[in-house]
């Protein structure tokens, strides 16, 4: 099985050399196979977001290596990494440019990792393609190509961001609690869309979530972070048969302490 992503002994410490020194990641080792849909859970401060930001490039790697398709990307900028990695943010406002129209946003995403020139940003052929792509979202957005993104709801924007992240097939898609800011009903719609897009394109996906149910229900693999390290890594049948209580038992056995994050359990 070819490895898409390899994280080797990754350390990230915030406020190094100050009294507030905070080692967030303390040696994370993780390998993602092609087609893995990994859900990442962990309590607040476990390092989920830091890990995702390290892969995306928004936080420079302090120690360790991040290897994508056998190429060390640890030192590359976000822009360079974006050629192979796409990302959906937690905040629906973050994933799109609000003053640009729906079609202009999609056109931007079409050019991810490609040269941009003085060609027309959106041409007629693009428009037809965008329409068919938007139609599969079932949100009636295919008739709103010229609408400014800022006028759409959070759920609509997040669905468009998802589409943008997959318009050009990425080697790896990063999902950063991308349904956390949505109402429960919209959250389900967006999660189902996520699953559909990932399985259709056979994407390798890395999904951070606060929601244990989602983490168990979606994906073929579940990774739990605890205090900056991988505490649990469940694949295949082990993952399929998981329940919330089983997961909590496993965690207790592994870490030796009870999982005490009400926020995480309640959601």
């Amino acid at each position: 099985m070819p490895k898409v992503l390899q994280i080797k002994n990754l350390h990230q410490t915030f406020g190094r050399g100050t009294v507030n020194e905070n080692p967030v990641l303390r040696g994370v080792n993780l390998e993602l196979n092609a087609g893995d849909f990994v859900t990442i859970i962990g309590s607040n401060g476990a390092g989920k977001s830091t890990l995702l930001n390290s892969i995306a490039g928004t936080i420079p790697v302090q120690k360790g290596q991040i290897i994508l398709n056998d190429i060390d990307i640890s030192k590359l900028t976000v822009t360079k990494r974006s050629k192979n990695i796409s990302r959906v943010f937690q905040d629906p406002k973050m994933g799109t440019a609000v003053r640009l129209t729906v079609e202009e946003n999609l056109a931007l995403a079409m050019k991810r990792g490609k040269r941009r020139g003085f060609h027309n940003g959106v041409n007629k052929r693009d428009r037809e393609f965008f329409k068919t792509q938007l139609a599969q979202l079932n949100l009636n957005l295919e008739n709103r190509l010229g609408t400014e993104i800022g006028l759409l709801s959070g759920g609509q924007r997040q669905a468009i961001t998802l589409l943008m992240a997959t318009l050009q097939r990425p080697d790896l898609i990063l999902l950063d609690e991308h349904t956390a800011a949505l109402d429960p009903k919209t959250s389900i719609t967006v999660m189902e869309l996520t699953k559909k897009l990932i399985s259709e394109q056979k994407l390798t996906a890395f999904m951070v979530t606060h929601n244990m149910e989602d983490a168990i229900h979606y994906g073929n693999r579940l990774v739990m972070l605890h205090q900056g390290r991988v505490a649990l890594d469940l694949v295949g049948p082990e993952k399929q048969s998981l329940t919330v209580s089983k997961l909590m038992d496993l965690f207790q056995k592994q870490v030796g302490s009870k999982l005490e994050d009400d926020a995480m359990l309640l959601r």
Partner: protein
Amino acid sequence: MLNTFWDLFLSSTSQGLLWSLMAVGVYLTFRILDLADMTAEGSFPLGGAIATMCLINGINPILATITAFAGGMIAGFVTGFLNTKLKIPSLLAGIITMTGLYSITSRVMNNAANVSLLGKKTLFTIAQNWGLSRNNAVIVMGLIIALIIISLLIIFFKTEIGLAMRATGDNPEMSAANGIKTQRMKILGYMISNGCIALSGALLAQNNGFADLNSGVGTIVIGLASIIIAEVILHHLPLGKRLITLVLGAIIYRFILALVFQMNVEPSDAKLASALVLVICLILPNFHLPRNLKGEKKNA
């Protein structure tokens, strides 16, 4: 009375057309890239100086004006480089370039504070040769140039690079995540912006008949006022229409100023008067404007 009013209107229109390019330049950084760029006050007199010195040396007015535009672009590049590559905050980067430009402009003008264009061929004397009156020549030439620049910008902002630049100002994180080289986009934006501002300086120097080393002081206020007036009159417009309304904003601002100066304002109080007019423009229509200004960007 009516005659003075009409005269004021015509002269405001001609002045406003020339200043509208200043407004367009400021709009590019202030609104599209979401940066406060003080370079404007340096690139404006630079543009005037370059055009004037070119004309004095017998260079064709069109070429002289284009050279001024290029000079402004270089100034913009410097600020962009300081801001993006050297990580100096945009406001400081602009002030640094503006300060340095004072000496550069002085050198361009052979260390004179004021260089006259008396009797030289300018863009406006060309238009006068078409049989137009002095003021009509300025209006026609100003209109042609504003039309060319705004049309080019509208086309540019629809291209792949243009979209990328707008996205950079709108949402830099998302832009980077979509592979946009945000630093390059900012530098390019600074360059086009200051090119337009230098062009405005070049046109006004040709209209006034002289280049003035100190003509940059307070010019950013004129640009901002034109933008605010345009936005207050027509709230929410797509980019292309907004650029066109900036011309309207610049003309209205000149007209308000002209009315104020009718009231026997001392020349030395001119800057104070124009600053006060900007304050009034900002607060009169809507006391919630600070929120509105943000709102136009984030929500509307």
